[in-house]
């Protein structure tokens, strides 16, 4: 007897993987389009524009935390950086993050705290007044910049969510969305990117969450819509496009630390006395300059933060 096996689904009917991965976006775009059309029909006006990179931020207070050094040109800071979610070359983020959607965006707070939950970005940001901080940024690769960030102290955020007595660390997670983040389609790192700070580091007045730079909304390639800035640590600790904060009792993971534990420690404080196993950290090239300059302990913030690490061996153990 001949048993007829049903045909496989013809390949023309299979949705291509990149399209499949963007299905939600497709849906939400369709809904957006529908709503916009409805709004246009009802009121005869255009929908309000989304928050766009480059939009001027208003009501930003100047802060006393501002280094008196020449700012890195905006053009350099926005076209030369690492954001492996959009590719491993320095110009990749500026090329491939252009269509990245930063609205709607939500931030989940969980772990050892009294007020866990998922908040829209707007609600998450609402209570915080923006201020400008001009910080040095030192990349673990040996280059540095001076960037005027716009943000607010992480300490204020932590206070709002009332961490319990068990909360000793904060863990941060970047969005996982290979559909929008082409770099995540290759297993270069263990996605999603995670980072962590000890609670006293997280609460330090220098530590901020940033939503802007150079007085404007953060460009997508620089970690929009919400990123961490910890100026005394190597740049990779300042995690970008954050979707989750988690208060933990145990020391959380850190992507680069997991990737190469002997090369990147959990602390990763800028330390000219502790070389990367493969290259020196004694000097750095300030973007815009030809010759290297000496790297400063804690990236020049030793007076403010060195006491956090009193008695710790920052070269061999807690690097």
């Amino acid at each position, binding site marked *: 007897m001949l048993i007829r096996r049903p045909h496989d689904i013809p390949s023309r009917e299979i949705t291509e993987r990149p399209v499949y991965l963007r299905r939600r976006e497709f849906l939400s775009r369709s809904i957006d389009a529908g709503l916009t059309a409805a709004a246009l029909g009802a009121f005869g006006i255009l929908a309000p524009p989304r928050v766009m990179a480059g939009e001027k931020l208003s009501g930003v207070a100047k802060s006393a935390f501002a280094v008196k050094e020449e700012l890195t040109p905006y*053009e*350099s800071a926005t*076209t*030369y950086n690492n954001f*492996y979610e959009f590719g*491993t070359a*320095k*110009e990749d983020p500026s090329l491939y993050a252009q269509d990245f959607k930063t609205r709607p965006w939500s931030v989940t707070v969980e772990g050892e705290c009294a007020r866990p939950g998922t908040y829209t970005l707007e609600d998450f940001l609402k209570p915080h007044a923006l201020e400008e901080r001009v910080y040095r940024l030192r990349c*673990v*690769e040996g*280059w540095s910049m001076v960037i005027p960030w716009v943000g607010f102290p992480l300490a204020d955020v932590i206070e709002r969510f009332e961490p319990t007595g068990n909360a000793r660390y904060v863990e941060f997670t970047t969005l996982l969305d290979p559909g929008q983040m082409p770099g995540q389609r290759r297993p*270069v*790192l263990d996605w999603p990117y995670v980072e962590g700070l000890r609670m006293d580091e997280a609460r330090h007045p220098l530590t901020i969450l940033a939503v802007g730079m150079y007085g404007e909304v953060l460009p997508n390639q620089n970690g929009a819509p919400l990123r961490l800035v910890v100026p005394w640590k190597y740049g990779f600790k300042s995690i970008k496009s954050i979707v989750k904060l988690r208060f933990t009792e145990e020391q959380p993971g850190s992507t680069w630390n997991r*990737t*190469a534990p002997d090369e990147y420690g959990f602390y990763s404080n800028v330390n000219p006395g502790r*070389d990367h196993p*493969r*290259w*020196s950290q004694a000097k750095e*090239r300030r*973007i815009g300059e*030809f*010759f*290297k300059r000496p790297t400063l302990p804690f990236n020049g913030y030793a007076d403010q933060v060195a006491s956090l690490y009193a008695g710790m061996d920052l070269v061999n153990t807690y690097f």
Partner: protein
Amino acid sequence: MRRADPVAVAKPLVFAAALLPAAWLMYRALIGHLGVNPVETIEHHTGDWALHFLLITLAVTPLRRLTGHGSIVRLRRMLGLFCFFYATLHFSAWLLFDHFFDVMEMARDIGKRPYVTVGFSAFVLLMPLALTSTNGMLKRLGGRRWKRLHSLVYVVGTLVILHYLWLVKKDTYYPVLYGVILVALLALRAPSLRRPRRDATARGGSGVAAQVTIGDQGTTARVHDPIVRHTQQLRIRL
């Protein structure tokens, strides 16, 4: 009427083409378009092209074998010297911009950083090859010794790949890609891939002559290369 020698025609064109990467870099420097980190651009560009010319040079032998156009070997010296040219620029950029002639620090770097150690070693090993690339040096050394000396290029290739592999932070895509190309170019030299003709004399365009005789005394291969001005004889008894 004499037929035009294609290699003689190609030589100045290849020479001009090989200068294009350097010209492009100069042009970008003059109009101030070396990017956000110009030193890195210079170092990467010159390093990339030193590697490209190394691989192109190593591709000559397999290409001769696969295409039968033996005469392209006459381009090889020039291609090899362009590898040395870009390697020299690469080394100079490191010397000037990264260390500003600070000999002590350079020595420390070479001793301490494996990727610098292998990169520097590769450059040092290229020097005798560049110095003995002239016809005069070839004659003075004799074909056999000259060839042995120049097989250092295989060591250089390996060191250069290690140099690349050890300097990248995590994404090893390109160093691995170049490594695969190097391995492929070396594998194409394997004796088993040689297909000598039975009792035949092959003559390449440059006048490279190979004669293979299979007889009672074993197989004898005689290769005469007029560029190297050397005849090599190989006898295999089975």
